[in-house]
């Protein structure tokens, strides 16, 4: 009992042992912090382990503080609206659209495949075009399903033909934007183009 009785010299652990324990404790805590806690809490993931464990997006959503993130975190997508999607895995993507930037986020789908989607940006305006290109087409043809400016959209989508389907996003704000896109359905993610 180190608090009230003064222990004899022999009862105390050696200085080397104490230093070693302290260093080990700090190092183990450091490794846990960097690989698990920081990705989960702040979306900070210097080692990439957090992404591999699927923890990074939790941290990003927690810290975005946006209504979009709240909608997605509460998992409304496909949960009540359409029974067919109930037991499907939900994918959540965080898409960075830098100031003045534009990009596409796409999915490969076969004709008749269905998806339920929901996306939003925290603040600011974005121009989007939801469209699809038929597989194997080289003419540059695309079919646009919806285009507008806005902060969010949600709905279901049935692919009218086999090909690449998804969103074109263009940053219309005076700062960087982060789109959080949540999807469920039958598709293969091809991601940012």
């Amino acid at each position, binding site marked *: 009992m180190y608090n009230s009785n003064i222990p004899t010299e022999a009862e*105390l*652990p050696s200085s080397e042992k104490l230093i070693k324990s302290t260093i080990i*404790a700090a190092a183990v805590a450091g490794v846990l912090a960097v690989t698990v806690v920081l990705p989960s809490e*702040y979306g900070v993931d210097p080692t990439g382990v957090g992404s591999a464990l699927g923890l990074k997006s939790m941290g990003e959503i*927690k*810290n975005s503080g946006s209504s979009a993130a709240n909608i997605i975190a509460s998992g409304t997508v496909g949960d009540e609206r359409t029974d067919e999607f109930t037991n499907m895995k939900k994918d959540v993507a965080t898409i960075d659209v830098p100031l003045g930037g534009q990009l596409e986020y796409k999915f490969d789908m076969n004709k008749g495949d269905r998806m339920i989607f929901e996306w939003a940006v925290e603040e600011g305006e974005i121009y989007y075009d939801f469209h699809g290109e038929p597989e194997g087409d080289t003419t540059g043809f695309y079919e646009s399903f919806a285009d507008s400016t806005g902060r969010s959209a949600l709905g279901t989508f049935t692919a009218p033909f086999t090909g690449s389907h998804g969103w074109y996003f263009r940053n219309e704000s005076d700062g960087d934007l982060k789109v959080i896109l949540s999807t469920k359905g039958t598709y293969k993610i091809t991601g940012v183009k």
Partner: protein
Amino acid sequence: MLFLLLSILAIFVGMTGDVFAHGITEGDKNYVQTISGVAPIPFIYLGAKHMMTGYDHLLFLFGVIFFLYKLKDVTIYVTIFAVGHIVTLLSGVLMEISVSAYIIDAIIGFSVVYKSLDNMGAFQRWFNYQPNTKIATLVFGLFHGYGLATKIQDYELSPDGLLPNLIFFNIGVEIGQILALAVILIAISYWRKTNSFIKNAYTVNAFVMMLGFLLMWYQITGYFVA
């Protein structure tokens, strides 16, 4: 021994949601903002809830009572801790002192590291000197209270009935502390009866110190990220 480690771990990881959200739950906040005037029971409840789910306070208290065998000693140290955090909880809120919660929480993490090292006999070995454990408990009690003060300021309390409500919150904090402590004390008393207590006391304190370091990394990173 294993049971104890698991219970500590369970306390640590079990409080995800509101605790890890750093601060208070949205629901509690919405509720508190509807209150104007003195509301004893809600504030006692919130105080107790905060303490029972506050793993950082619990880890520190675990360190404080680790080598206290007599109920009298437990009472003395817990009272010193309570006096410390009453002072800063009340003065912090009433004087609207606001420092980054991350810094305060990092210091609370450090208090866990300090107490574990103290229990391991590190200060006697390193400096051939035992720092006064009561003063340390009081000083860290002041920081823990300050942590509560920064969090309760997030509630954006109505000025109407502020002081009585704070006192009720504080009463709740003490009740929550006693309830949580009772659970820890029962578990540790059983463990002390076995040979594994002395054999593993050092390791358990090293493990608690690791959790203290983990809290520190967590909060320090939060300070720079947020």
